[in-house]
């Protein structure tokens, strides 16, 4: 089935338009827009992870350990900081730790393990390790840092990191051969190898980048709230949900960074909107939010698969928008 011309792009855009409309309506309920900034911080964090996750999923992989990587980096930083080291050194360590454990993930995948199993195992391993290191207690009441890295120019740092990671990812994935390699590897790793693409090197870098970004997020979080290992559970699934809702296929080879941005915006808005609504209407509790997000995820995934099947051109409007 072919959809011709401009008509063909409507089914792709339609859901987003509808959802944004609905969400906009909900937002008219918000009394203090300033509160949004703080509420949205956690979603900015998810967004950063989702963007990096997009690149990994495009290449046919997946990283379930991002939450645990944040936890471990955060604990490492907290321990060092509490022991008296300056905050800057501790921050550097956090990023280093993140990069290292990300590199371990990359190493396992390059060895030949399925990314699903490898990152599932390291997810357990890193989070358990984080808990062991801090003795099961969260590390708070940390000494004041010389520079408060949790805020830049009045905005929480997470938003800046999001903007930076987004720009970097757009450039890397859609403007360099590294990105082209990711698509090829996700489509057919064997053919990519036969086409002289450095498959293993690319994969390793992707997972290392994921770890580095997790470390960066850990720094900002620890400065703001301390090293709380439990706080990052489940964030990887939220990130994957954003990627899927955005339209990147979980099997790899198709999708893009802009799509994920859309997914982040949609899910964040729905969750926040429902949260505000639940203040108004008591019957909408945590369970309702969960169910809505879950159903949304599945419905959109089915919709995107149907789109991908009936679309005989590889490039859709979204992808054209991602041209540099």
């Amino acid at each position, binding site marked *: 089935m072919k959809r011709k011309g401009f008509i063909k792009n409507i089914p792709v855009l339609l859901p987003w338009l509808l959802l944004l409309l609905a969400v906009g309506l909900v937002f008219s309920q918000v009394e203090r827009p300033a509160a949004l900034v703080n509420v949205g911080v956690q979603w900015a964090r998810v967004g950063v992870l989702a963007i990096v996750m997009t690149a990994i999923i495009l290449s046919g992989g997946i990283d379930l350990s991002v939450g645990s990587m944040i936890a471990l980096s955060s604990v490492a930083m907290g321990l060092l900081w509490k022991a008296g080291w300056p905050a800057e050194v501790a921050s550097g360590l956090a990023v280093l730790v993140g990069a290292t454990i990300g590199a371990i993930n990359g190493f*396992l995948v390059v060895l030949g393990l399925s990314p699903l199993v490898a990152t599932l*195992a390291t997810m357990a391993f890193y989070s358990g390790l984080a808990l*062991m290191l801090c003795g099961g207690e969260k590390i708070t009441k940390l000494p004041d840092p010389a520079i408060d890295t949790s805020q830049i120019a009045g905005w929480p740092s997470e938003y800046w990191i999001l903007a930076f990671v987004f720009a970097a990812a757009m450039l890397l994935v859609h403007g360099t051969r590294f990105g082209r390699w990711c698509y090829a590897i996700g489509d057919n790793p064997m053919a990519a190898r036969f086409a002289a693409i450095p498959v293993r090197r690319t994969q390793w870098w992707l997972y290392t980048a994921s770890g580095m970004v997790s470390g960066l997020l850990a720094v900002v979080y620890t400065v703001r709230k301390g090293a709380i290992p439990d706080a990052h559970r489940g964030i990887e699934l939220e990130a994957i949900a954003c990627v*899927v809702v955005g339209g990147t296929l979980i099997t790899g080879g198709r999708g893009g960074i802009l799509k994920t941005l859309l997914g982040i915006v949609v899910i964040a808005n729905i969750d926040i909107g429902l949260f505000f609504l639940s203040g108004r209407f008591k019957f909408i*509790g945590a369970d309702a939010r969960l169910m809505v997000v879950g159903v949304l995820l599945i419905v959109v995934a*089915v919709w995107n698969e149907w789109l991908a099947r009936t679309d005989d051109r590889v490039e859709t409007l979204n992808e054209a928008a991602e041209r540099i």
Partner: protein
Amino acid sequence: MNVAAPTLLQLEQVTKSFPGVRALADVDFDLRPGEVHALVGENGAGKSTLINIISGVLQPDSGCCRLEGQVCQWNDPVAARKTGIVTVHQEADFFPTLSVAENIALLHGLPTRKFGFVNWSAMQKTAQKVIGAVGEPIGAGVPADRLSVAHRHMLQIAATVLQSAKVVVLDEPTSALTSVEAAWLFQQVARLKADGVGVIYISHRQEEVFALSDRITVLRDGRKIWTRDRKDVDGKLLVQAMVGRDLEDSSSDRQRRPDSSAGDPERGHTVRRLEVRDLNDVKGRFQGINFCVGAGEIVGVYGLIGAGRTEMARGIFGLEPLASGSVLVDDEAIEIRRPQDAVRAGIAYLPEDRLREGLCRGLSIRANTVLPTLDRWTQLFRSSPQTEFSSASRLPHQEPWIKRWSLGLLASRRVEQQVTRQVVQQLEVRQRTMEQSISQLSGGNQQKVVLGRWLLAAPKVMILDEPTRGVDIGAKSEIHRILRQIADRGCAILMISSDLPEIQQYSDRIMVLRSGNISDQWPATEVTATQIAEAALPIEKACDQTPAARKKTTSWTSRGAGEWSLAAVIVVLSIWLSLTSVNFFSWANFGNLLAETALWSILGLAAATVIIAGGIDISIGSLLALAAACGGLLLKLPMAPQISIPLAILASLLVGLGGGLLNGFVSLVGRVHPIVVTLGMMIVYRGMVIALVSGRQINSVPQAFGWISIHPESGFRGAIVLGLLVSATLYVVHAHRRAGRHLYALGSSPSAARLVGVSQAKTWLFAFGLGGLLTGVAAVMVLSASMQMQSQLAKGWELQAIAVAVIGGVSITGGRGTVLGVVLGAVLLRLVNLALVRWEIRGEQVDVFIGGLILTAVLLDLFWKRRRT
């Protein structure tokens, strides 16, 4: 009186259209018993569509099919097979993780005994018969992925011959075979003829068509051109009918260099482009390879399958590790460890299997074309891209090295489109737009794109592995014309082919590989076909090239290796634990351990069942909580325990079953990967649990319910019995029921499963439903043990369930795993938990060890797999 022979199969006015394409238009076809009827035509002519209709894969839009006079309509391949039509497809799909015997059995449906249990002895007998017909030493218990492509194909053909079919369709049967195996194939065809079976034979190889067939039908553009007796047809007529125009005479098609003696670099007349000295393979598939190819020369490499041609080519290109030897390009030795090294040195390689090794099917033509050369098509500092075609005689070594290296950062779609356009024009690739998905092109055009992508690299040496396999005649001669042009520009070409006439016609020099060594080489004009074929034959027949025999013995030892090592670890751990703690083996402790093992065996089996079928379920924890909540709610009802308990149990089981089926259904119908579906469902189920549970408690629970897990006085644990029962039942289902074996088949190869008639829908739903049901059973156990409903119940349990399965030997990619392994995995995990409690490691810190165990298990499995191949 009807003098003509009775018709076996008759198709009248069959028409089939796809969106935008008329694949078949009013085609008539008939087949007589005991005849070999060749079906010939270019790619896209409609042969595959016709065959798919006959074998039941597709249904015609209009027209009538008759088998032995009776009107027939086949809705699926299984129906066609039941009426006696057997098809051997070109891409021999098989089940890699299943044994040879089971592969053979699945072709015609697993044999069953009384009560529907799988008949293993009948399966073995059939397998031995088939292997005997092939005549090669192949072990029936060997996993099929250890066999070579040729052997797999031959087994399939032999199995077909042994079955009493009425019509046998052979689609390009010799594409994976060469002379020796092909001779065996022709014998089989003769047998079929003698048995009165009608054979439809599709082949691109004219000599086969003329050698075997009684009648020939030509299709072109979806129409039948004619059907004639073979004796009324000659090569020219055939080609004319296929292509619709006169192709040049094959002798004038000889794109030979006028002075072939000048092309022999041994005599030092031309530049030695490629030189290979004493090349040895790490795995011994080729040894002591010495040859060279001069600029402008096309060297044809011939040899049987297993002679080491592809392995040698891959070794030169850096895809396979070399034990020793050197490769020189333009008299400069090169260190080649990876394909990138080869490309930088100016070597290009076109792989043998275009679909799996050559193309990224989901990407566009443009993306596929520029893939290896992305570093050249950048936007900065280049106004017009330099390609093979725009600067005709420029080769990479003439370009400034620095300029080429430093600009590989920014990709430019505009430049990529420019160069792709040049490639498409020069090679006459028939396509609509370069942004179209490459999977929509015909085989010949796809091959041209793969060729073009390497031309963009301006290589000095091109190695082509079966360049015209699966390519129609028109595209074939175009490709050879292009190859000659490239050679004339100074490139050295190494052409590997199993098509002897092609080798003779298009090469300047011919080289034959035999058992990993170069047996002979001659200038093409100075050798006959017989000489070439003889040089390719192995010297001693007893020299067993097939490692299958050797592997037959190793499969026995490795089959149970996983379970044995698990058991060993468990024994060691138990001994250590009993030594370091006083009352480890007290009845209470032991009982607890067994009860927990029972629970986790069931959960592990729930995860394993789904994973074996090729899926995954990360909603197990939430589903368990939901099932427990529903059961718990029912227990609160003011009813007699005799009613409320069974009702609660039933509710839990049904919720589990329903949840599992829902997961399976959504992923099946929505065609979404199960990880996404179960992720969403996990969130939804958890939401439902919160909605059901919040603010509600179970009070006054009937006592008897608790007995399911533990009897308060005697300490008897019903859980253990339940666990044993479930494990035993699952074992029977997995190993001895057809539905269970279908799980393995689907997980092993979904495409083969479809062809063979294993219903993907039914098997998928069975897998998820069974998994959900087991989750429901576990929910009952948990509910009776804890007597509580919690909204956070079983959070994260799916990780442990998957861990149990993976540690127990279940392969995450599907098709592999045993019930015993999963149970052992559960035992091991509980023991580890116990040990950790002893070390005072509590709560989620345990996860470190779970993660570590999973990694150890999969790394070990990977290690063993690498050692075996």
